[in-house]
């Protein structure tokens, strides 16, 4: 674990610079933000209803009430425009998490500082923050955010939950926390996964089973697993075959092991000395 992985538990875990994201994630801060947004938006609607009901009783008469209604609506429309812009910025940032993390960090810090965001937009921001922290290698923080978000009702289910569970499994495996990895993998089983998710899940499952030494499970239903492996990118596919080969080694299946080692080496761009 490197320094960047340590969680700063001090209440002032914010960055010194005002424009940046908090240096470490604080669940309480996120909850405060969500409550603040809810109160702001709910308050505006409440205010509008109050004006409608009791507007004529205001000093200055109905003209003042109408003006108040217009003011409330202007604020409401402004909030919605901010929301639309924020959602668009987050969607754009999502596509460049891996390649341009500094820019994503800037976008996130700008969006998450805004007031009156819809719950779905703010949560979308935090889901993106998990992906960003993972890309930066800050696994403890990524896991911590994912765990917090998974305890809440997420908008647009089940997509964000799937992303978070995959992220949490990834971080747990990297930190040798097999118990959390197992829990996340079990939770994933109950969700409708897309093909990309199934490939990611297969890889994580293999890493988990290999990590705890369940070699027989690694090779269970290998034909199906190899079909999935055929759809993975070369790095993941090579690693997948390598882990399966290790399992075959441990189960004393030399022919299978040699074949899998050969595949792994070929996918990694090396001559497969064992196969030739």
């Amino acid at each position, binding site marked *: 674990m490197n320094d960047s992985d340590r969680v700063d538990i001090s209440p002032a875990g914010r960055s010194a610079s005002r424009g940046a994201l908090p240096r470490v994630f604080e669940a309480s801060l996120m909850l405060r933000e969500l409550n603040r947004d809810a109160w702001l938006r709910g308050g505006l609607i409440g205010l*509008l209803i109050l004006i409608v*009901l009791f507007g004529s009783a205001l000093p200055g008469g109905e003209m003042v009430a*109408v003006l108040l209604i*217009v003011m409330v609506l202007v604020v409401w429309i402004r909030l919605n425009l901010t929301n639309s812009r924020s959602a668009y910025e987050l969607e754009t940032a999502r596509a460049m998490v*891996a*390649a341009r993390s500094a820019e994503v960090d800037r976008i996130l810090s700008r969006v998450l500082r805004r007031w009156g965001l819809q719950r779905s937009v703010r949560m979308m921001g935090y889901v993106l923050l998990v992906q960003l922290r993972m890309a930066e290698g800050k696994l403890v923080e990524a896991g911590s955010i994912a765990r917090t978000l998974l305890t809440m009702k997420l908008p647009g289910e089940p997509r964000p939950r799937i992303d978070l569970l995959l992220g949490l499994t990834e971080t747990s495996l990297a930190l040798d926390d097999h118990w959390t990895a197992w829990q996340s993998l079990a939770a994933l089983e109950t969700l409708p996964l897309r093909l990309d998710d199934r490939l990611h899940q297969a890889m994580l499952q293999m890493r988990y089973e290999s990590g705890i030494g369940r070699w027989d499970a690694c090779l269970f239903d290998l*034909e199906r697993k190899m079909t999935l492996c055929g*759809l993975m990118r070369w790095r993941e596919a090579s690693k997948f075959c390598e882990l399966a080969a290790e399992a075959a080694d441990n189960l004393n299946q030399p022919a299978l092991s040699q074949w899998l080692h050969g595949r792994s080496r070929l*996918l990694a761009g090396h001559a497969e000395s064992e196969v030739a």
Partner: protein
Amino acid sequence: MPSADQVRALLARHPMRSPRRAMLMLPVALLALGLLLVIGIRQAEIVGLIFLLGLIALVVVVRYRIKMLRLADEHSIQAAEMVATGRYLEALEWVWRRLKSTVALPLSYGRMVFEAGRALQALGQHEAAMVAFDFILRLFERRTWPAVRTRILRIGSLLAHEYLSDADDELNILRSTLESLKADEDGKQTIPETELEWAWASYECLRLNQQVRTLHYRDVLKLDDQAWLTRLHKMGHESAFGYGLIALAALSLGKHQEDSAEAEITDCRTIAQRWWKRATTLMAPESLMEREPLIAGVHEALEAQPSPIGGDR
């Protein structure tokens, strides 16, 4: 199986269009109506009520719109999954039925057409596939990922159809595009590194395909094993097609050297055997031949790597 004309007819029947103006103007219209009411009606209760109803209507419309966007996106993802898992006919049927739902969304629409092209190409309908690919290339800017990916597939179809001159021109365009994508002036990449390395490996594989089709076998074998492995492996399991083509080049060179020394011919056969084993370690010979019929001759002449798990690899 859809023909090129049928693909053209589909695209003409459901052309892409920008989102309905009326939908985009709705919030502005509501605001204008509200302001008119404020001026016309002095009763705060009625004005407030109308505004509230307007807000509710706006929320309903926006939610409906978001639902439609998600559905269209889901349709294009489903089509991509069907093609990735080899359910080509199902994918084509899916696109034919649901393309209409994506006409107002350029990305989803583009993806649906792209997947139709991919399915048609996999089924050997290269003319029809090229109609779809040409459409995508008109839709997206040359340096965007959809355009790069489409050009790669289109070149594959051109080569399969033996349009070698067009394929050469397209390969040159692809190369210059990929070079310009290495990094922008400010060092930022517009396409993720993983996609870019796949694209470069695909480019090398297409060049190899071109060399084999133009009978430049010797040029193929000028590079040593490691150089080819380094160039092609980033295609993942698809690099098996490249390895199969190298085996074909070596085997064909051996056959063309009837006047050469026996040792040289045997050497070519050994090289071909080595590459064929590599290809069939990654992919079953049947899958290789299905996608690249040129390879059939290699399968008859050489011994494939047996698979200890059986079935497809």
